[in-house]
Structures are given as structure tokens and as C-alpha cells.
């Protein structure tokens, strides 16, 4: 499974939706994921890829990690994997 599919699977599970309902344009709010749900998703992603994601739940928009859409999350994760697995 590629990075995109795995991230979508994790987010879909958090949102209690089918992976097919999650698009790259979806925002966490669109999917009904609140701040606590986001923290949990990030944790699952870290566990799945064995990486560390710089995410501060105090002010997600101010974090170094862009969580505005699923697409941005996937891009960010791909970048982190490249950096941390290099």
C-alpha cells in the first residue's frame, strides 16, 4: 500500500467513513475530525510509518506541519518519510 492510500485509510477509520469518501480536498472539519481526533490520526500515522510528525495541538495552524487538507497531510508525510528514512 502506498503512502497516500495508507494515510487515507487511517483518516477514514478515524472519521468512521469508507476510504472512498475521503478526497484529497477534504479538510479534517469536512470529515468531522476534531482536534482530539486529529491528534489520534497523527499518532496512527506516526506508528504506521515509524516517523515523528511535528504537530502541536494547541494551534494546529501554527505547526510546522500542514493539516489543512488530506492532500496536504499526504504531501507532508511523504516529505517526512523521505527526510527521516534517508
Amino acid at each position: 500500500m502506498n503512502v497516500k492510500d495508507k494515510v487515507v485509510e487511517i483518516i477514514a477509520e478515524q472519521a468512521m467513513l469508507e476510504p472512498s469518501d475521503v478526497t484529497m480536498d477534504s479538510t479534517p472539519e469536512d470529515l468531522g475530525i476534531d482536534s482530539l481526533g486529529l491528534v489520534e490520526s497523527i499518532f496512527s500515522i506516526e506508528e504506521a510509518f515509524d516517523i515523528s510528525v511535528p504537530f502541536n495541538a494547541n494551534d494546529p495552524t501554527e505547526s510546522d506541519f500542514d493539516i489543512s487538507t488530506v492532500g496536504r497531510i499526504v504531501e507532508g508525510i511523504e516529505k517526512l518519510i523521505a527526510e527521516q528514512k534517508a
Partner: protein
Amino acid sequence: MNRVVITGAGTINPLGQSVPETQEAMREGRCGIGALEFRDVERLAIRIGGQVKGFEPDSVFNRQQLALYDRFTQFTLLAARQAVTQSGLQFIGELADRSGVILGTSGGGLLTQDENYRAVYEDGKNRVHPFVVPKLMNNAAASHVSMEFNVKGPSFTVATACASSNHAMGQAFMMIRSGLCTAMITGGSESMLCFGGVKAWEGLRVMSKDACRPFSATRNGMVQGEGAGVFVFEEYEHARARGAEILGEVIGFAMTSDAADIVMPSRQGASRAISGALKDGRIARDRVGYINAHGTGTAANDKTECAAVADVFGTHADDLMISSTKSMHGHLIGGTGAVELLACLMALNEGVIAPTIGYEEPDPECALDVVPNTAREAEVDVVLSNAFAFGGLNAVLALSRA
């Protein structure tokens, strides 16, 4: 209804190992937060905290006591000794029967749990010390205080996360006010600065890596601390009859539940607790001069708390002062309200308002007088102490000079 006064206070916390030391640090806006020192700290992402430094348990407690006293119990006993000594009370005869111990803690003997889980899981040991259970239990501190001072009335421990101390002191207040007890030893203690304790908090991603800056636009989370605050609450006529020095009067208390979310605070829940404490003490809003804020330095708390204060006080919200001493000692979780009550007593008795240090930039959503960075001299008549816990459990105390 009986009046309830405070006749003794004691503490050990990152700012000092007595009430005078702590209040001096608060006056000077000193920061007790620094690099954490314990095993495996290098495996943590968060490496700062308000740790009690320069405290040698071996110099205070003997070998048998150390086998039974977790660090949170040690802190409690040190603070309780100071408070009871200051009060001058001796718990004998009827007074012993009519006095109790109600203390707050969230984690109880968490260091004992951490050490012993490590021994059995990581080190593969199959034997632990026989006193692990009586050492780690949440009521250990309250029980040891009752034993040391011969206090034989209602005693128990309250665990409501970050509001534990305020809930405990509120219970103690109601015990005396209702006539059930004459004196109570009350407050709270916390000690969760160990690898497992901080690792658990890290998971929530609300911790700051550099500083606790409540109400500042640049804040980026909370910082944990450890320590205890313990007080002697006493029925007013009893205290007056024996000529005790009165440090303050507890005049109101209220508790509410948000009934909403396990971690996100609620503006309504907080404002109902604040207005409830005013109503309980029949306190006119404009008499409140200072609020010791819950002020954790998280985005969620600080905005919600300022909005709740504005809701309750209306235009008077702009005239009162509100500061968070967590900027100096960190968040003592179940012991925090007790240590923060020392800032309230300092405001009442010395006319000095403890500052919110680390304040860098105003946040329009926290547009109150947060006493930034330096202490201020001001006469205040009534003070409040806020505590809003995870789980949506809120407790607010109101105090005045007796």
C-alpha cells in the same frame, strides 16, 4: 453557617520550600521551570518542567518512612508540617475527632508505579518491594497526614485532575461551614515528573518545549510542575478564641461539570463555576480585585477562561487583575490550586499581585489585565482561584481578609 478561616499554610514547589520563599519568588516573578533531570529524559520530546530541586528526602525522612512515602506523600508531609506548625493546633481529644484531612492529587504515587513497572517489565524482575501498593495509592498522603497529626475525623482524597486541590479545599470548607468539623488539613500534591508521566502528557501534544506563557499570543502549551500546598482551615470562632493568626477567610465555593468534552474546556461550565462561587459567598462582582487564573498556557484554556471571566464580570472584567502563576511554577496538576492559593493569600495580606511571566505579546482573545511580567502593588478585597479540569470538572474558591 460557620465562617471558615485559614490559620496555617505550607508548601514545597519549584519556587521554594516554604511559603515565604514561594511568595518572594512570586513577587520577583522568578521562574522555577528548567531542564528536567531523571532517567531516560533524553527519550522525551518535552524536556522542561517545574521540578523541585535541592530537596534531599534522606535528610527529612528515615529509611522506614522512605519505604512508604512516594514523592507526592513526601511533599504533602513537608507542606502539612509547616501548615500545622503555623496554625499552632494540636489535634487531641474532641478536636482530633472533629478534624479531618482532605487532599487532592491526580496521579498519586505515579513515580512508584513508574519505577516498579520498569522493574517488572523492562528489567524482568519477578519481585517488588512489599509496600508498593500502600506507597502508590492515591490516599496514601492523606492517610499519612492523619497519622502524623492524630487527625481522626473525615479524611479522603479527591481526584479531579487539574481541579483536585480546589475540589479538596472546597470540601474542607463545606465540612467546617456546615458544622461537621472544626478544623481541616487540606490542599493537594502532585509528582508525575518521571519518564512515564511526561511521556503520557507528550502524547496529547499540548506541552510546550520552551516555556509556559499564559495569555501571551506567543504561547505554545503547558509545562508540568510538581509539589504540594497544604493549609489548615479552621472554624472562625475557634480560631479567634485561641488568638490564632488568620491568613484569610474562605467565603465562597462552587463546582460545575461541563458535561461536554473529555478534554476541551467549556466557557459556560467555567462561567457557571465563577458566578456560582460569587453567589455562594453573596459577593458583589465589583468586590473581586484579583483572580488567580487556571491559565495553563494552552490555546483552548486561556481563550475560554478569559471569555468566561468577561461573561461573569461584564465591564468590571476590565478593572480586575487576573494572572497565572503557572508561568513560574508550571502546572502542578492535582496540587496546582493549593500552590496557587498562596498567590491569593499574598494578594490579600501583602497587597502584591503575582505576575504572569513570559508574557510577550497581547492576544486579542485574552484582552484582560493579566499583570504581565512584573508583580504589582494593589489593595484587593476579594480574590478568586479558578481550576478547570480535564473531564470538564470545575471548582472556584473565593477568599477575603477575615
